[in-house]
């Protein structure tokens, strides 16, 4: 089972400059295996930028990223999902003109061997089975043949996470998965994320501190690109610096 030094994802001295702005500044984070680690911070704190650095979408100016002890700094994005790192997007990023099933099948097929890609789709049984399982698990069974673009906002957010899971990641990074959701949808999504965290490691990037409090075992606070605090939720909430920087700025 997970021990304190079973680290899945780690950053060391991670930094990036946008012109003069140091959007992420010397951030060291170690994500323990299992459960939910949350990264929070006020608007513009550098959360999404940090996330883009980790997932290979942006190259860091300095610092390194490790996945299960292997350095992945600068690894092209398309290789990361095969290595077990997956992400969902703050702004829903699906294939709107494809059906729900096809969104999942396409995602599940990405890591299949090339030899299957020139046979009829129905022959790739593993991807098909995975897509089926995800459709059911995320309660989209009755919508399987709908265009993804025709789903409600809440359903699209669900599909967004399901698509990110199709590559069987070891670690899933979610950028504000509840953004724009209604209250009931948010509760539903929180429950889903908690369920998922029993199987895989989750890094939850959130703007809203209340959502992460009872979900995560560790909370990291970013402010102005720097790591301000790190620890169990209660301790972080009680931290003076966090209260002035985070709640003060709220």
């Amino acid at each position, binding site marked *: 089972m997970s021990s304190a030094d079973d680290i899945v994802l780690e950053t060391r001295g991670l930094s990036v400059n946008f012109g003069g702005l140091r959007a992420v500044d010397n951030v060291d984070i170690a994500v323990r295996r299992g459960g939910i680690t949350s990264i929070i911070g006020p608007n513009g704190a550098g959360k999404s930028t940090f996330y883009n650095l980790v997932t290979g979408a942006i190259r860091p100016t300095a610092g390194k990223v490790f996945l299960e002890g292997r350095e992945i700094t600068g690894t092209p994005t398309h290789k990361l999902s095969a290595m077990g790192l997956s992400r969902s997007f703050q702004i829903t990023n699906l294939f709107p003109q494809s059906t729900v099933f096809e969104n999942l099948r396409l995602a599940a097929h990405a890591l299949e061997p090339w030899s299957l890609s020139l046979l009829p789709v129905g022959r790739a049984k593993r991807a098909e089975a995975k897509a089926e399982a995800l459709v059911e698990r995320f309660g989209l069974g009755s919508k399987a043949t709908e265009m993804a673009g025709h789903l409600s906002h809440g359903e699209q957010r669900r599909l967004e996470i399901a698509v990110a899971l199709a*590559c069987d990641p070891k670690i899933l990074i979610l950028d504000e998965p509840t953004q724009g959701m209604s209250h009931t949808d948010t509760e539903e999504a929180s429950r889903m994320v908690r369920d998922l965290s029993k199987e895989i490691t989750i890094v939850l990037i959130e703007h809203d501190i209340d959502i992460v409090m009872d979900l995560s075992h560790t909370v990291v606070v970013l402010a102005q690109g720097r790591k301000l605090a790190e620890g169990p939720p209660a301790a972080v909430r009680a931290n003076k610096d966090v209260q002035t920087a985070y709640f003060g700025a709220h």
Partner: protein
Amino acid sequence: MADDGSVTTSAPRSAGATAAVRAYAQERIEWRALNIASIVFFAGAVAFGVAYGLKGDTFYLRLATEALIFGAVALSVDILLGFAGLLSLGQALYFGLGAYAGALVLKQVSESFWLVMGVSILVGVLSGLIGGLIAIRARGVYFALITYGLAQIVAKVIYNTRELGASDGITGIPIVNVSFGFWQTKADNPAGFFFVVLAVIAIIYLGLLYLSGTPFGRALSGVRINENRMPFLGYRPDRLKLAAFVLASTIASIAGGLYPMLRGFVSPELMYFDASTNAIVATMIGGTGTLIGPLYGSVILVFLKSMIGTITTHQIMVIGALFMIVVIFFPRGLLGYLREIVVARSRTKDGGGP
């Protein structure tokens, strides 16, 4: 899960059918109209070939053969635009290269149909790799402009190359014997050569139809619909686009290889912008992404041009007006429109109950 209780207008739901089964069933419905249209097309073409062959016609058979050849260029536009979402403004380049390669082979190497086919495939693959590696670095409008530029440059170089006949092109291409073992014909036999070209186009069409139902074809659609998400799933959009580009250039080049057999000459005009836009217009009239649509579009375009040509010299204006009418009233093209009707029908029919 919270169900929002909205009405589903999904395809038939037989009790207990898995999501995959239902999704595939729906896809079949979407292709049903197009498959019927393709049977009508090829059956119609065979009937036409037999009837006009028996009549001893030359003019219409040759016009139809040309329409099929240009139809293959339109198909190559459809792979790029309808599958991968790439607008090529220079597809005639690969058609022209195949045509010149075919002409040179026939004149200087051997009067072999099969050798021309082999060489035009090779030329299509190589030129597509080079053109693709240059063009797919750019996106959107820039991609289109690069494909345009490449075609213009090569056309100009050939126009200025004396060894390739410069502005006159290459003429006096010998008449080819086409032998399938059990049956043979000559390129100057209008009905015989029509059937040869029809067979080549049918093979290309069936091959592409098959590809559209493979994970590779689906991944190309993924690139068209949301290229940015693809790397996060583990796909490489650049590789997929290059594969589509090479496939398209090869098909255009094969069509090019057939051209000198039909017309007995090749010239730089084959690579000009006009030729590239004709293929785009045919694709859009017929229906982008439908595969059979571009073949219909090409037949419509070639015959219309010929008919209008006997009435007025302002063909381009009439074609332009037709194009605008189609784009305004049937933005998905004629076959795209037909598909929508059939899909809508099946929904209301199946939505009534199991």
